[in-house]
């Protein structure tokens, strides 16, 4: 927590990292998620999770996502967004280290430190489950070498069974068949059915996504910014997020006429912005009141 925020040295620029591309062998398909990738990168550099060398790992993480986009192998949106959330957090943390700051007094700094600790905590938790998964895998494999005795009942015992009661007419039986064969879950895997129980969409998370896109590119239209929204809810939340970011003075709007195309432009500092300091009002409104505090990273629908 008290780790001093110092200027990161040896931040490799885009050219030098791409020059080392060949040394980066692992394919993304080998990883089961952003935490897995992050752990892989940390292990590759022989780093302690809690002393993550942000600059190196962040750059590789981002580069990895780019590579994946180039490959374009049907990357599911929700999967991509998880990677982007982590990438945005890493970028925030890396950016914070580039800023000269001695004392932690700014609210922004505190939020960043919290974001970092939360990221580390989640990473450690994931690491624990990954180890347990390895144990399960080994045990299941060893156990698969044993075959249970499950033989058919000897005929003279089968003959003892009470005569089956069967009262279904062919029509009733067809009804049962129809019901059993009915597709139960027609939703394709990549869409998910979480919205069925009203999963929350986080303003901060969406702001993070928007920030990530706007910060590193040219002005974008609102239409483009919500082109990948999987539901109306996400569109609405992104709009709310833009309003919040506007209040935060990191974006500006341009709309030549009412109902015409709305263009959003990044006006904040090039680095160091985080959705962490956005107003809390939307966050608290969408979760049950029994939960006092939610961190942006924890909304995952």
């Amino acid at each position: 927590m008290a780790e001093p925020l110092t200027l990161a040295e040896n931040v490799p620029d885009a050219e030098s990292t791409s020059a080392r591309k060949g040394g980066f062998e692992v394919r993304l398909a080998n990883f089961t998620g952003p935490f897995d990738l992050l752990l892989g990168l940390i292990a590759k550099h022989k780093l302690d999770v809690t002393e993550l060398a942000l600059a190196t790992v962040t750059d590789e993480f981002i580069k990895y996502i780019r590579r994946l986009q180039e490959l374009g192998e049907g990357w599911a949106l929700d999967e991509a967004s998880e990677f982007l959330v982590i990438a945005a957090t890493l970028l925030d943390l890396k950016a914070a280290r580039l800023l000269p700051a001695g004392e932690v007094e700014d609210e922004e700094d505190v939020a960043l430190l919290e974001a970092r600790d939360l990221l580390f905590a989640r990473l450690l938790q994931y690491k624990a489950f990954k180890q347990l998964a390895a144990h399960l895998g080994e045990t299941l494999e060893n156990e698969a070498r044993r075959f249970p005795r499950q033989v058919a009942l000897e005929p003279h015992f089968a003959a003892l069974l009470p005569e089956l009661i069967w009262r279904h007419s062919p029509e009733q039986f067809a009804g049962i068949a129809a019901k059993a064969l009915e597709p139960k879950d027609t939703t394709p895997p990549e869409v998910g059915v979480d919205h069925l129980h009203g999963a929350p969409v986080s303003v901060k998370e969406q702001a993070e996504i928007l920030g990530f896109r706007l910060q590193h590119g040219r002005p974008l239209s609102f239409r483009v910014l919500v082109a990948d929204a999987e539901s109306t809810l996400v569109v609405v939340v992104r709009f709310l997020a833009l309003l919040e970011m506007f209040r935060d003075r990191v974006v500006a709007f341009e709309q030549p006429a009412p109902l015409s195309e709305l263009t959003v432009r990044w006006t904040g500092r090039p680095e160091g912005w985080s959705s962490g300091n956005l107003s809390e009002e939307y966050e608290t409104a969408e979760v049950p009141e029994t939960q006092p505090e939610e961190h942006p990273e924890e909304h995952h629908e």
Partner: protein
Amino acid sequence: MSDYEDAVAGLAALGERPGGARAALEAVLMVIDQPASSEELAAGLGLTVAVVEELLAELQQEYNGYTVKAPGTDADGSPADAGASRAPRGFELRNVAGGWRIYSRPEFSDVVGKFVLDGQTARLTQAALETMAVIAYRQPVSRARVSAIRGVNVDSVVRTLVQRGLVEEAGTDPESGALLYRSTSYFLERMGIASLEELPPISPHLPGLEGIEEFFDAERM
């Protein structure tokens, strides 16, 4: 005995494992559902038929209460119990219709019968009915595919249906090698129909079922 020595080369791998070739044979006999001939057992174990038949005879005697010292298989072999008479086991090894299988000993058939009946009801559970319906309308079909359609594991339910004579094995899938199942003539009998064609068509109940076929085939397990 010379057969035994002839086969020592083939035995080598098995001989190094605890219990040796005899235990390997026992392991197979304990879990096979269908009786296996001594030829099939020999082929699977990599032993000669003569050796397998010798081992089968030994096991049979041993289960019946006579301890037989098998040369080369019993590592320590205290001479005291060679050929000694002991209490029989609760199971026996029988050669029925050309195949070997382990059965429970008939002296305990009343106890076993009571135990088997305790867990049984005369009615099929809803899960069994639904599984029966899927098999009847999608036969021949593997358990994995029925599981995929029903969204739950159906292994034990299918076993119950087989036990009840409503479902039987119907070869293996040429692609996956999975066992396939179909309904039996006893099923037709219980339904009161002469053939499967008399089963009411279910398409009216299932608007747009065409897509589901491809969906499940694509993710065949």
